[in-house]
């Protein structure tokens, strides 16, 4: 690690050193005494100060305000509010509905990324390196077609996906039960996929996974294309099977992309607002699909308790941060710190 950072610092310094005309300034402390030209000042203003200002105004300040609101009893419809300290957070700990939502969000954060990534990697492998074992390394026949098809769901807005699938899952008129009864599974007639505590969460997760697979397939395809083909050829010559190649070659080599995908998917899954609101606005049977963001929305706009709702938002943010931290930790513990490509 230290070797790497040293190199980094070195290569970082090199271009700026050469940019300065030699002999113009004395060697020691030349950076500090360099005249601030208009060119440089305007560059800093545009590239650094402006984004920073935007960031502070539109990102940092709302955060700070949100944390403050979470400690008030603000109703949301007046400018008056009283400071109540950590009361809202204490109340959250005893709020059964909120705890149930936390549990559901946690479940989503684990299952959705895992399943999505597994399927996306499988598809990406098949369309890039899973093809014929004779000739050059390539994907299965018609790989381009599958790649395009798998991307389709990602082009549809989430709210549309939610509404369409709610219809697909309709107990009596839905496509799913129509197909199931059509192939002779009469027990499935009138089965409420989104209305039964045993299936509602799984059915909702399926929709979320379905909508994300295409994008992550494309992401992993790009990553796999960045891996030199010789590695796959060598593996093949050594007699590695397709599965072994995927597990031992592909996954380690695109590890960074997988981690990125995990974090983005986890954030999307912990939120899940649009999907859940479209399929089960009430939170599902027995609150089995109720997520934190829905609780927040109801509390703020239906119950007029913005202070309490903001506390939920703060907790949601902390949960998300915690999730990202866990992903990094797991990645580090399982050896993600080594740069595999560097050694190869």
């Amino acid at each position, binding site marked *: 690690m230290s070797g*790497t950072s040293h190199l980094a610092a070195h290569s970082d310094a090199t271009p700026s050193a050469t940019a300065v005309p030699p002999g113009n300034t004395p060697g020691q402390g030349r950076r500090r005494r360099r005249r601030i030209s208009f060119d440089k000042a305007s560059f800093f203003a545009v590239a650094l100060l402006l984004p920073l200002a935007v960031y502070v105004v539109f990102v940092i300040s709302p955060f700070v*305000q949100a944390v403050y609101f979470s400690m008030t009893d603000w109703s*949301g419809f007046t400018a008056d509010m009283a400071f109540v300290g950590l009361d809202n957070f204490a109340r959250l700990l005893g709020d059964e509905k909120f705890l149930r939502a936390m549990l559901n969000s946690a479940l989503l954060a684990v299952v959705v990324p895992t399943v999505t990534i597994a399927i996306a990697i499988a598809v990406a492998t098949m369309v890039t390196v899973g093809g014929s074992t004779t000739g050059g390394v390539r994907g299965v026949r018609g790989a381009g077609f599958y790649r395009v098809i798998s991307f389709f769901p990602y082009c549809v807005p989430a709210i549309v996906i939610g509404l369409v699938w709610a219809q697909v899952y309709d107990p009596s008129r839905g496509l799913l039960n129509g197909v199931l009864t059509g192939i002779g599974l009469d027990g499935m007639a009138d089965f409420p996929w989104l209305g039964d505590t045993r299936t509602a969460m799984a059915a909702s997760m399926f929709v979320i996974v379905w909508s994300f697979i295409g994008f992550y397939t494309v992401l992993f395809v790009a990553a796999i294309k960045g891996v030199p083909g010789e590695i796959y050829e060598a593996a093949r010559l050594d007699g590695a099977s397709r599965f072994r190649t995927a597990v031992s070659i592909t996954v380690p080599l695109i590890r960074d992309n997988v981690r990125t995908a995990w974090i983005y998917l986890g*954030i999307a899954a912990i*939120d899940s607002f649009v999907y859940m609101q479209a399929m089960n606005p*009430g939170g599902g049977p027995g609150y089995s699909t109720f997520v934190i963001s829905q609780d927040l929305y109801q509390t703020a706009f239906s119950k007029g308790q913005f202070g309490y709702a903001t506390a939920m938002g703060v907790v949601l*943010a902390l949960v998300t*941060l915690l999730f990202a931290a866990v992903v990094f930790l797991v990645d580090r513990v399982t050896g993600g710190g080594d*740069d595999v490509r560097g050694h190869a």
Partner: protein
Amino acid sequence: MSTNKLTDGRLAQAALDRRTFVRGAVATALLAPLGGALAGCAVPSGGSGGEETAGGEMTADNPFGLAQDADVEAVIFNGGYGFDYVQFAADEANKQFADVTFEVSPSTQIAQELQPRFVAGNPPDLIDNSGAGLIGFNTISDQLEELDDVFEAPNYEGTTIADTLYPAVKAPGTYNGRFVALNYVMTVYAVWYSASLFEDNGWTAPATWQEAIDLGAEAKKADKKLFVWGKEAATYYQTMALNSAIKEGGDEVRLSLENLEPNAWSLDAMQGVLEALHEIVQKGYFVPGGAGTQFTAAQARWSNDQDALLYPSGGWIENEMKDATADDFRMTGFPTPTVSDSPAMPYEAIRAGAGEPFIVPSQAANPAGGKEILRAMLSAEAATNFSQSRLAPTIVKGIVPDDGFGSTALVSQTGMLDAAGDNIFNYQFVDYYGLNADQLVVWNAFLSGDLDVKGVTDKLQKISDDVAADDSVEKIEVS
């Protein structure tokens, strides 16, 4: 490690990328949830109050003192009734005040859209605070104008408005003694059926739950069900149950529910209804799978496919299902069945109350303009326009003709109102305390057969108990 220059550069680049990425990812993790979750929260900005328009002089023709050059803004919930009926009223008002500009705009998310304006102190002059996204009255009632002067004013025909209305229409808009919400539409809660289907099969509307269960058996023979429900509207059955229990047990039942008393859901009358409903569920007289069915799709199975015989709902049902109703359906309503033959209130008793609350915020620039639109709405032209085009009665009496503008449902609504006479009741605890969302979950489970009578009683009681125990919720005492 290789000392090759190219490799070094690439390695360094990789390390840099990873660091940048870590920072980026952490920043994203910070941004995504908070940004999304809090984007809707507006920042209070002092609330200095809207720009007040100088008032005009109060005269008989101008009872609220609307300035002759005022700009009046109304935001109307665009739901089952649309919003153009208010535009119609505003046009009527414009005939009286030629130089006033009336602007009527629709919204489907009242709370979300108007919350920042309330905080900033410049809400619109008139709001139809209705729909799933309405602003809870317990949060804003003290920021609203009292509307008694609207009822005291003359309508455009010259009659005092109060004299033209159904009785007790102020009650549902009165909070802590202040009449702040003018509920415009008279809603009759009933159970609805197809008169033509019932005639063809020789069925009659059930007056007691036993008769309803017997009708369920008849329906089964015809390969139909008695009831159907949708996931977002499972609590329509709660409304029906409450109405039946109140008729059975009288005011005692109503008051204990309204005042969130600890035994409200276990009173005998309430239990009798729940047991009857449970039996109907157990016998399979409900179309299965309602907990997973969108409510208008479920309603269409009653109104269009006629798979179910009965549907409990408010009077809006005819308008709501207009495009999905079978030909010659002849939608007709009847009062909720009772538990026994000798209920405390007669069978004809119904729940009816004014709905669609219109409010005038005190901080609005032009409260007089908001009231002027209300005055126009309560005058004959606009009220007739509403009933005729929406097939629903307003709180203005004597507007609906005997043929109900050709609507059987409208005729039966006015018929039920007349038959009930003084036995009209209403209750508000569900809406006032915002209990519907929690109760929906319980009712979906109960109608699916996942809860027995004790289970549904305990869960509904807990919802009431939780609100009763929450000191931060302001209670209304009903007597």
